[in-house]
């Protein structure tokens, strides 16, 4: 009877508290863009490739020239989603605490402010810069449980085809959490 109860608890526990659920991958049938996602401790985290041509199209329509925006759109950019589905409290993150690594070696990636400075120096127009700034994944945010979320662009600054791991970190009631997506690939 005791072993039956233990087995039942082991089976049911992940349903209520998915400690580190399986990483999922998918490919968009139309664009060929690949996505990686994972849910950890009630927080959903995903990256979807934004192909350089897609980024060009988006930003040229916002007022950038190709010459201005190409350094960004070719820097391995992802549509990033973080969502507090069912964490037991407010999720707070600072994007500066996230990390990427290639073959276990840490790599730096530019902040939103650094990109805005670079594009300002390239004499991009004000409406284009406003669109750029607010299309990026937020540098810091707080999500209430039950569905607060953001979707925004994230540049990891790696070359086409590079495979890497990325770890998102957040805190909740003073406790630190992290979710890692492994084997993420920059669009070729």
């Amino acid at each position, binding site marked *: 009877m005791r072993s039956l109860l233990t087995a039942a608890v082991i089976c049911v526990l992940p349903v209520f508290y998915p400690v580190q659920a399986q990483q999922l991958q*998918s490919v*968009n*049938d*139309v*664009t060929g*863009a690949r*996505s990686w996602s994972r849910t950890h401790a009630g927080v*959903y985290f*995903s990256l*979807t490739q934004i192909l350089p*041509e*897609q980024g*060009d*199209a*988006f930003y*040229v*329509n*916002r007022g950038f*020239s*190709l*010459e201005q925006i190409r350094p960004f759109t070719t820097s391995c950019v992802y*549509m990033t*989603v973080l*969502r507090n589905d069912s964490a037991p409290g407010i999720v707070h993150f600072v994007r500066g605490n996230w990390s990427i690594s290639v073959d276990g070696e840490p790599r730096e990636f530019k902040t939103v402010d650094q990109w805005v400075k670079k594009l300002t120096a390239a004499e991009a127009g*004000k*409406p284009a810069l*406003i*669109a750029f*700034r*607010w*299309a990026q*994944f*937020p*540098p*810091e*945010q*707080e*999500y*209430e449980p*039950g*569905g*607060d*979320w*953001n*979707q*925004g662009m994230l540049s990891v600054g790696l070359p086409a085809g590079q495979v890497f791991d990325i770890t998102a970190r957040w805190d909740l009631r003073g406790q630190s959490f992290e979710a890692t997506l492994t084997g993420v690939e920059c669009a070729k």
Partner: protein
Amino acid sequence: MQSKSPARALQILLLCFLWASALQAQDLPPLTHKLTPIRTPSVAPDLIFHNMDEEKVDLKDYRGKVVVVNFWATWCPPCRREMGSMERLYQATRDSNVEILAVNIGEDLDTVFSFLGTVEPSPTFPLLFDTDAVSMKQWKVKGLPTTYIVDSEGRLAYRAIGGREFDHPAIRKAITALGQ
């Protein structure tokens, strides 16, 4: 655009369309339907911008009504997706002392006007223009879309970060209850 080749421009437009279509079909996270009550309601920051008729609109003039203040842009996928549900909410709550002010960030009238034709149902509530994105700091908006519900006494009552289905019964109930 410094690259003036018509073929290149056409290619970019086509890619943009294909990308938008693809995003509609796949990769889209679900819109959620929960508003977060603000634990210590404070008076809403100032909000004074021009509308599509270039008339000045001041949030303070809506005192006595519940106001949904939505910050958005046409290039923001979840903003686009939630816009139709906001219009349905508007139509359903017009007699319940509820108003909607959607503040566009950084775009011009022509861009927004072109976008309106793509939304079903097309918004009939006031659209305001914050061309310099000055409201983002005042309203502590860190990402688009962000929505606040302001109660009839001008205090922040609810907040929603990220896209919502605004005509969901749970949201409609919370908003109409504020107006009673």
